[in-house]
């Protein structure tokens, strides 16, 4: 269940005046995630690169795919009734993607790889747009604020650990409140695109 060790967070924190996100999802993707979560439990995404089914988001049960220090979390997808769904990609790939906003959509298809939606006859798909100057300014300021990687790893231990971890408390005190923890207990209103 845990995504205990991973790299920096590139998503914007929830603080007054900040609204920019790097990743969101369509209602169709949200509906599919509801169905898939019922089958597989809490889910996460890792954006793939390379050939065949590369350049496509891969959806796995949380804990199946080990994210690590080489990955960035772009944000969390909010679906009513589900725990936040982390969206990750490798840092090296993020270097080439960071000026774009991603929307997880779903299309009919066969899919491939080990992504959990393929047996449903559908495939998650990324639709992209350029981030605006204002969004980039907001998101870049967050990137500059990000703490050292090892500190961050501790914040994303499983809920029972993270909820009481001193390091988490420290981080919350010295910076700003977190919008979402990964304790999979919190949920928030859906933020869907049209």
């Amino acid at each position: 269940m845990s995504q205990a060790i991973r790299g920096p967070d590139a998503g914007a924190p929830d603080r007054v005046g900040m609204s920019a996100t790097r990743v969101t999802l369509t209602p169709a993707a949200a509906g599919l995630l509801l169905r898939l979560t019922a089958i597989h439990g809490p889910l996460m995404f890792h954006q793939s690169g390379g050939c065949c089914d590369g350049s496509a988001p891969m959806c796995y049960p949380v804990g199946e795919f080990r994210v690590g220090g080489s990955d960035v979390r772009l944000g969390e997808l909010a679906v009513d009734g589900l725990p936040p769904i982390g969206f990750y990609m490798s840092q090296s790939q993020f270097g080439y993607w960071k000026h774009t906003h991603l929307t997880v959509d779903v299309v009919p298809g066969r899919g491939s790889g080990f992504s959990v939606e393929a047996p449903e006859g559908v495939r998650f798909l990324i639709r992209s747009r350029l981030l605006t100057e204002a969004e980039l300014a907001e998101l870049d300021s967050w990137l500059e604020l990000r703490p050292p990687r090892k500190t961050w790893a501790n914040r994303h231990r499983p809920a029972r650990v993270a909820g009481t971890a001193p390091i988490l408390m420290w981080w919350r005190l010295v910076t700003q409140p977190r919008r979402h923890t990964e304790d999979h207990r919190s949920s928030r209103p859906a933020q869907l695109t049209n």
Partner: protein
Amino acid sequence: MTKYASPGQVGSVVSFKSRYENFIGGDYVSPIKGQYFEDSTPVTGQAFTEVARSTAEDVDLALDAAHAAAPAWGRTSVAERASLLNRIADRVESSLEAIAIAETWDNGKPCRETLAADIPLAVDHLRYFASVIRAQEGSLSQIDEDLVAYHFHEPLGVVGQIIPWNFPILMAIWKLAPALAAGNAVVLKPAEQTPASIHVLIELIADLLPAGVVNIVNGFGAEAGKPLASSSRIRKIAFTGETTTGRLIMQYASENLIPVTLELGGKSPNIFFDDVASQNDAFYDKALEGFTMFALNQGEVCTCPSRALVQSGIYSSFVSDGDKRTAQIRQGHPLDTETMLGAQASNDQLEKILSYIEIGRQEGARILIGGNRADPGGELSGGYYVEPTIFEGDNSMRVFQEEIFGPVLAVTHFADYDDAVKIANDSLYGLGAAVWSRNGNVAYRAGREIQAGRVWLNNYHAYPAHAAFGGYKQSGFGRENHKMMLDHYQNTKNLMVSYSENAQGFF
């Protein structure tokens, strides 16, 4: 011109069965849970057969069969293994047309290519590994007068292989031939987009295969691929695909401490120096064809030359000529032998390509040609066709950095040699590349400086057996298509033998 009849119609050279089960232990076996999934042809978008939707239980059955077969198969003489590969090659060659049309129907690629490239290359690949296993020798090292170290090649045992959908049969043979030559038993999972064509081949050769040496389990990655890749009963896993699944497979392999070979694609640069256009001759014509190679196999090639880097001095004229060459590409029915560009392999692939064309536009890349979904009309309207598309832009754009896996080219210019190498190497990947120049020294130096496993000099898209193929950087590791692949399917046994009667002197 020939137009082959569609499978299922009168006069077709091949007919698919209405259902394919798993090929396990030499027989076709129903999936234990009794589930199947529809397989549609990208040519029309219509379903034409159904295929086993396997689960861990079926993978276990296949592993049982492979383990039962592996010890005896591993003890066969190399002559016997080579003979089997040659007999398979002969059988495939004698049914080449049927297998090629089956491949076209399952994948969407033009039959021109399956008839002239995919299946003939598969045949040759089998014969190549039949040859090299006969020529392979162990070695001995004379440590001192009475102590000799012998090195034997031994098979790994049972291996797993996960095959991509862009060259379903050729990529299966790329993996099967070295594994079988080396004496391994195989459990192979075809891609779910193209699960059927390999069964046309297997049915033709089933009587040649010792039971359990080759086992084919169809299904989805999450349901059948994972149990195979994560099994503690395989001694190696080979995968061709993309980076995230590659990482996941390595993760599973790390749990079992088994070796992995991965081929994960690229974003291959195709570099044209000024001197290419110093004369308007046959070589210039060849270079223009090289520019247009991005559209081969609908761009669904791991080494698709999807970034063209053209030197400033010839940029305008060369790209303009390249556009004209691209405009001459004949897109149409994949079963027509005149067709050069067929269908993308699946609907989600089509959608992905279109989404990339959209972000390319937004990033400010200029479309020189194409840029839309194509509708060839008639029964093809339900299929998945994309116009050959050329973007002009900057190497930092996403269309220059990500493998779109469609007939989409991103073109930019460079100032000089150093600039060319810098742009070429500004990529996460390093699978393929090409350098075009009339100056052999320049071509050689650039070829050595580019961080890629395969660099073509003054040609592209040649994949003969006996030329190593594999990636640098995030494109994976292992070298297929060459005798060195045998090493990836063998253990080295060292026998340390003393020919002395005397104690060693320790105790």
